[in-house]
């Protein structure tokens, strides 16, 4: 039963989820509507509880057993509690029941997001540019014909994606656009068809219970 029940659930929900796309009848459509608007939302609400619960449990254990970098878990848990309280009771921009401003210093959820989450997130992503620059220097070597072709395409795209190129070579941005529109599209379409057929086959195997890897490796 432990295996059969999930398999039956997947079979039923898989078919129920796919049918409304091919059956325009009112009953199929309204059932699908209800399924999405009510059942899926309830499941999503449970996933929030599951997500918060598992992150709290994971970091509590980390602190308890003093695992590597356990100190950071304190920061995560404290931040989670503080932002949750501010978000739940402080309103979006300090309009809630909880006061979120002291002598002109605001710490409402929008202020925290704009002045902490955005710069931190953007900084993490910006670090990529350093690694990419270093990787480009090391990897882009004209070792053979294919590598040379890649190198030339990369140069055209890099120049084409800055306005300076239209001042130096007026036709370069158009050529870069052509690379994206024609050769890139041709390759992407071929890959897209392959991926779509592969996804369809895998989905069918999962729905029909042939592929059971998602059950956690149970035979």
């Amino acid at each position, binding site marked *: 039963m432990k295996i059969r029940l999930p398999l039956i659930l997947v079979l039923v929900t898989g078919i129920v989820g796919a049918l409304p796309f091919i059956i325009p009848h009112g009953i199929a459509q309204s059932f699908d509507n209800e399924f999405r608007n009510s059942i899926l*939302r309830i499941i*999503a609400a449970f996933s929030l509880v599951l997500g918060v619960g598992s992150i709290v449990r994971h970091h509590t254990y980390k602190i308890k057993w003093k695992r590597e970098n356990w100190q950071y878990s304190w920061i995560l848990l404290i931040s989670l509690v503080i932002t949750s309280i501010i978000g739940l009771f402080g309103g979006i921009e300090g309009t809630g029941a909880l006061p979120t401003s002291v002598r002109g210093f605001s710490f409402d959820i929008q202020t925290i997001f704009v002045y902490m989450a955005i710069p931190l997130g953007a900084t993490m992503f910006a670090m990529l540019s*350093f690694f990419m620059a270093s990787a480009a220097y090391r990897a882009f070597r004209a070792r053979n014909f294919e590598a040379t072709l890649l190198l030339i395409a990369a140069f055209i795209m890099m120049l084409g994606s800055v306005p300076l190129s239209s001042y130096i070579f007026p036709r370069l941005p158009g050529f870069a656009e052509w690379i994206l529109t024609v050769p890139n599209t041709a390759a992407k379409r071929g890959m897209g068809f392959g991926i779509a057929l592969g996804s369809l086959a895998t989905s069918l195997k999962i729905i029909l219970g042939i592929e059971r890897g998602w059950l956690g490796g149970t035979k």
Partner: protein
Amino acid sequence: MKNSWEKLAKLDRRVIYFLLLLVVVVPIIFPFRLKPKAMPPVEKLFNHIDTIPDDKCLVISVDYTPDTEPELHPMAIALLRHAFAQRKKVGVLCISLLGLGLAQDALATVSEEFNSRAQTNADSIISGRDFVFWGWQTPPLVPILGMGENIAKVFPLDYYGNRTDTLPIMQKIKNYNDVAILVSIAGSAVPFWYITYAQTSFGVKIGAGSTAVQAADFYPYLNSGQVTGMMSGMKGGAEYEQLVEERLGVYGRRRATDAMSSQTAAHIWIMITIIIGNIGYFVMRRRKK
């Protein structure tokens, strides 16, 4: 001499990092503005939004997160400037939870810009009348498909807690039939979900705003007409800002255009390092032979 070529082929990564930092920071302090020329995908998007009829609206799906904010936020701001300048009705939603704060910031920034210049109430940009911020709904399939039937049912309350069915703007926006174009701005696969479900099932026009690295993935859909127009990367945002300023005379801070000087310098520096690396590589290879 042998050593110098070898050094050239094997530059220390700290040197590359430091010089990259310089070429990014210096143009921020001393910017040089380069006028971007709009490419066809950006122009198509602009023209489509420009010709939205009065009975239809623009929907912006803010699906990016803080990590891609520098690249994608200027797009949302430019779109809002365009729509508000022409008094087009705007609906904003988020598929990504982290998009909420970014959408709120974009709406607050642009509406403040317009309201500071407004002479009368009619000139002002007011939530519930000129735009509606529906907020976030999960899982993604619920809003993407549900909006085709009834938007107010998918979002019973707006982001500020008002009942959406009572808002004046919502009296004319019922479902995708009332949406002229939906522009999904994301550094992820969200625009593809809109293409797969909203465009295919309901025929709603889709526009995209994507990071530069992801832009190539959209071209097959752009060619097939499933994506009406697109802004790709910081350059796409700068091109849209240029069109808004040039054609509508709407002025404001142009973050993408300002950042183009840094991006230009960084790209040139990366190209120089590649050339240096190749020179060193070829000299060493010849010597080995």
